[in-house]
């Protein structure tokens, strides 16, 4: 009997753990509601169809954010178009083709970890020197998108790699026994199985890209005109918010409204990323 007395102490510890976990969730929710509530309360009044489509006027105090929204989406598009293939490729190499003690793999992982900690302003200055000047792209949506791609790569790679690592070895073994090539195994089995990791990477990466200010000031620039091409300079939403709240007296109201639009945009893009992951990759993986 005596060895099972521990069981009596359990409910209390169990209760305590549950209490701690629920309160952690409540704290996070509270903080979130506080911050987002603040944005919504101050920003909702400005939001209208006109605000979303019109061009900014009077340094952003008046008018809307139409061209800025377009620039933001273009920058994000460039960033994702470059970072997703590069990131997934690297993640596949790291997870499927290099063992833990492989030197090349460790080197790449190390450099990615350092890249993950690189301050955004250094990315900005680097992007200005490398993409804008050396590669001759100038202040452009392309420069901004490429700089952001460098920034989100480590997040994307790490998350995707985790996804691949979590796919059971069973799949690899039985696929090999069927004589499936590495490529077929990866594209048809492991990639779908790694989708949750990829989606987390995307959500974090998109979040970081949309939220980025310092890296974009020096690369995609400050021009708030509707961009005509990817080689035009275009102001991103986060820069607009920064400028309005820190540099333009009287810009607060529109700064809040722009932040609200950004949050809404993020909500839509995240949902789309999750949906795409679910339907384009995962569709074939049928959970029981």
């Amino acid at each position, binding site marked *: 009997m005596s060895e099972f007395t521990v069981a009596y102490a359990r409910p209390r510890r169990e209760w305590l753990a549950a209490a701690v976990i629920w309160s952690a969730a409540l704290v996070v929710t509270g903080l979130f509601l506080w911050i987002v509530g603040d944005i919504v309360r101050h920003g909702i009044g400005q939001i209208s169809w006109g605000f979303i489509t019109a061009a900014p006027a009077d340094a952003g105090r008046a008018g809307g954010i139409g061209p800025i929204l377009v620039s933001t989406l273009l920058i994000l598009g460039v960033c994702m178009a470059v970072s997703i293939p590069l990131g997934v490729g690297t993640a596949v190499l790291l997870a499927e083709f290099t063992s833990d003690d492989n030197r090349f793999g460790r080197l790449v992982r190390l450099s990615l970890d350092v890249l993950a900690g690189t301050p955004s302003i250094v990315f900005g200055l680097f992007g200005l020197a490398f993409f804008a000047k050396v590669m001759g792209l100038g202040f452009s949506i392309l420069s901004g998108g490429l700089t952001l791609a460098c920034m989100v790569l480590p997040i994307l790679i790490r998350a995707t790699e985790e996804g691949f690592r979590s796919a059971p070895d069973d799949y690899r073994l039985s696929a090999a026994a069927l*004589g499936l090539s590495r490529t077929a195994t990866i594209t048809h089995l492991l990639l779908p199985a790694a989708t949750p990791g990829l989606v987390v990477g995307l959500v974090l990466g998109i979040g970081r890209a949309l939220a980025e200010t310092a890296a974009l000031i020096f690369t995609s620039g400050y021009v708030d005109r509707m961009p005509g091409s990817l080689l035009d300079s275009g102001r991103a939403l986060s820069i607009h918010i920064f400028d309005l709240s820190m540099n333009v007296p009287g810009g607060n109201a529109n700064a809040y409204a722009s932040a609200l639009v950004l949050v809404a945009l993020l909500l839509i893009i995240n949902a789309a990323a999750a949906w795409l992951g679910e339907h384009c990759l995962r569709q074939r993986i049928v959970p029981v």
Partner: protein
Amino acid sequence: MNDMRAEFRPWFALAERPPCCEPEPFIRTEHLSLHYRDKPAFRNVTLAINTGCITALVGPSGCGKTSLLSCLNRLTDMIAGAHVEGGIEIGGENVRAPRTDLIGLRRRVGMIFQKPNPFPLSIARNLEFPLRAHGVKDKSRVAELLETTLTEVGLWREVKDRLNAPALSLSGGQQQRLCIARALALKPEALLMDEPCSALDPLASGVVEDLIASLRMRYTVLIVTHNLAQARRIADHAALFWVRNGAGELVEYGSAKQIFETPREALTAAYVSGMRG
């Protein structure tokens, strides 16, 4: 009826079994040894598996039977630290040559695992996807193969209305038959089976066993089993493995009739009579 058979199975079938084997060996190993890092799995195995026969590998756990199977389709390549010595020849080709076409080899030599391991895909895609990966692109051909192989393993009637259901929703026995169908769809010449029935309940096990028996003559089957009665029922040949000096060794190899009725080695006699092992 089908279910009844699983339990009342003639015990005397051995002698009456029609001759199946062409004396031509399909798989041949020469002084084959395998060790994982420092731990030997089996050593010095020389075997010739006849074409079209069912050959059972029997013996206690840990004597290297499963490892031997993974050597044959070079799945050992995927295990870090596995080191193989000796020769393997399948269908006249040297499997151990560095330039062996692994993909082709594994298509020709199917493998069934102890635990049914369908992919987490739909039933149909479990068959379609490997076919497509092996170059069968024509949709009607894929559909045709899907139906014939599922029929061959007796699954077609059971699943034809829910081909898009998840494979993992099938019962254990159905999953294992699906895995066999998945291997058969690739038109292999040989099948390596690693205790294919041991994870199944007796009824399902009986169905799968009947399926394996029906593969005789058409495929060269190498089956690892702990179930001596099963080996007796379905095998044409049998090989007994035993652990000696910390590694598996081949003790005796011969026709099933000979191994089970007139074993040459005392160890074999003791094992098949149930006195050891």
